């Protein structure tokens, strides 16, 4: 097994009267036990060039020699924020998309996914601006 950790810190000196600093570290393990995840896509960079939605993870499908099932995904929009109106929407279920949220330039997200049928993860650009993203998946 491997040992992979994810650490997040959320901090602000002025969103409340007192400083806020939330921090947490998680070790990425398989479901229901403490065995570390052993597979990863590695860091991957993609560029979207149109307004067409794309499937980033085709849940259950065999890609990169492995069937990507349950895992954790990190996605970052590497574009500049620009005028603040351009983003890529992260979606679940390509056949009937459900919005998670918008990644504006510079934004990232990190979340678990179950990888079962209907658990595809998609990206839906707000416009045709060339958008570069990086992602990495750790999975069972």
């Amino acid at each position, binding site marked *: 097994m*491997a*040992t*992979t*950790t*994810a*650490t*997040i*810190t*959320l*901090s*602000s*000196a002025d*969103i*409340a009267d007192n400083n806020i600093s*939330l921090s*947490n570290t*998680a070790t990425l*393990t398989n*479901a*229901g036990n*403490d065995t*570390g*995840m*052993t*597979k*990863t896509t590695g*860091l991957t960079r993609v560029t979207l060039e149109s307004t067409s939605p794309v499937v980033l993870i085709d849940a259950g499908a065999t890609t990169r020699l492995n069937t990507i099932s*349950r895992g*954790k995904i*990190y996605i*970052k929009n590497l574009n500049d*924020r620009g*005028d*603040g*109106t351009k*983003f890529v*929407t*992260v979606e*679940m*279920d390509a056949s009937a998309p*459900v*919005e*998670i*949220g*918008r*990644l*504006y330039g*510079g*934004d*990232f*997200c*990190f*979340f*678990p*996914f*179950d990888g079962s049928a*209907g*658990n595809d993860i998609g990206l839906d650009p707000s416009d045709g601006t060339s958008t570069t993203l990086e992602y*990495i998946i*750790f999975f069972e």
Partner: protein
Amino acid sequence: MATTTATISLNSSDILSQAISLSSTMTLYKGGTTATGLEQMNYHRVIVPIDDYGGATATQFDLIPESASLANNSNYLYICNKNTDVTHYVTISIGAEVIGSLYAGDFMFIPWSNDVTDTQGATDPSGNDTSIEVQAFVASATLEYALFHVGETLLTAGDS
């Protein structure tokens, strides 16, 4: 405006033959702005009860109800499962769509655009299509979550 930052790092010395060390920092801005920081947040700790051991009738709760005040903008959500038994988990969903499972010690950080499409009332949203929902499995789960958001619908007091 306020300045709130999120920093994440992903590290492993042995999942590949070379070490992985990724780090990124972002500032939480309002959607449609170049650099206006989010000014509102909710930070909660909650125990999600279990009423049926993983069964089909186990209750799915609204962790964060959808709201027109939050809709189609920038909100950022952090959720952490504070349980310690590795078999304990919760599923996090948007409406009927499961995003994924948070096992004990796991966290997630996502943008949430709260894509409200159903009709909703001012005090009791009838549409439930984009609420953040949670369901506990195996045991009750203690969660901490923080929502950095663009607005909140305050309910008119009944005696106002």
